[in-house]
């Protein structure tokens, strides 16, 4: 495994989530965006075990609602919308929900891994 690569392998099944934001898929996607802080559709589709086009469609809907913001950089980067008036409360709610599921906790932990210089003493 390359240095710094996440050790977490996404589970083969879709991530669990309550249908709080309309559907389980939409809620899971929002929880993931909160946990990952900044992400992109291919990464979301990997964790959610669904197609990128399905992720893009869901993103379009929640972006239209103003909950997430996407920017067309090299890839479409996705964050919670910092200009959404309740973004702090939304982030807190999503992270609180995510804390209840081991899968999200593992994803969060894997994101904490940072590249480590070769031969650096532990």
């Amino acid at each position: 495994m390359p240095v710094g690569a996440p050790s977490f392998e996404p589970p083969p099944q879709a991530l669990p989530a309550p249908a709080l934001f309309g559907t389980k898929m939409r809620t899971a996607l929002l929880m993931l965006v909160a946990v990952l802080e900044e992400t992109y559709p291919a990464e979301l589709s990997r964790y959610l075990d669904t197609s990128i086009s399905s992720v893009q469609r869901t993103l379009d809907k929640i972006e239209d609602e103003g909950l997430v913001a996407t920017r067309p950089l090299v890839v479409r980067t996705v964050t919670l919308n910092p200009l959404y008036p309740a973004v702090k409360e939304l982030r807190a709610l999503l992270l609180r929900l995510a804390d209840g599921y081991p899968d999200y906790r593992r994803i969060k932990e894997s994101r904490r891994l940072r590249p480590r210089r070769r031969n650096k003493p532990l």
Partner: protein
Amino acid sequence: MIGRNSTLTDICFAVAAALEANGMSGVLTGGSAASLYAPQAYTSHDADFVLDADDPLERVASAVLPLGYVRNGRSRIFMHPVSEFTLDFPKGPLAIGGEYVTVTDVIEDHGRRLRILRRTDCIRDRLAHFYFWNDYEALNAAVAVAAASADGVDLDALRAWTQRESPALLEKLEEFERRLRAYVRS
């Protein structure tokens, strides 16, 4: 009727009237509000209206169709066949950063009325785009609106608001203040 030579101001008043005639109301916000406050220094190419009641865009489409505006697919943007100015109806409620906006201003012109963000809120709105998206065009618009204000700008209020958003953003407010001082000197 809106034509090739219609100004952004003309279009904003026409859209406000069309919305009102159809039982809707909206507030001009974003870069277009900045453009109206500082027309010599900043030009926006779209009119951003946040609707008070989050009316369905199909209803908005019917209201602005007589002006020549047609919705662009399923987006919130409306285009005109000859005017370069587009319309955008960002999702409400009207807010700047984490704070809702409940008080707005009205501009009147020859019996026409247009609801618009207050000048200070317009500056905050542009600053929020600079704070969170590093949008330097929005920063320049904030500077232009602040410099065009005959009464000056309440920097203490801006600092208090920035602090409420995040103390880490105060550095960016200092950038705004530096640019404002340079702009006023020039």
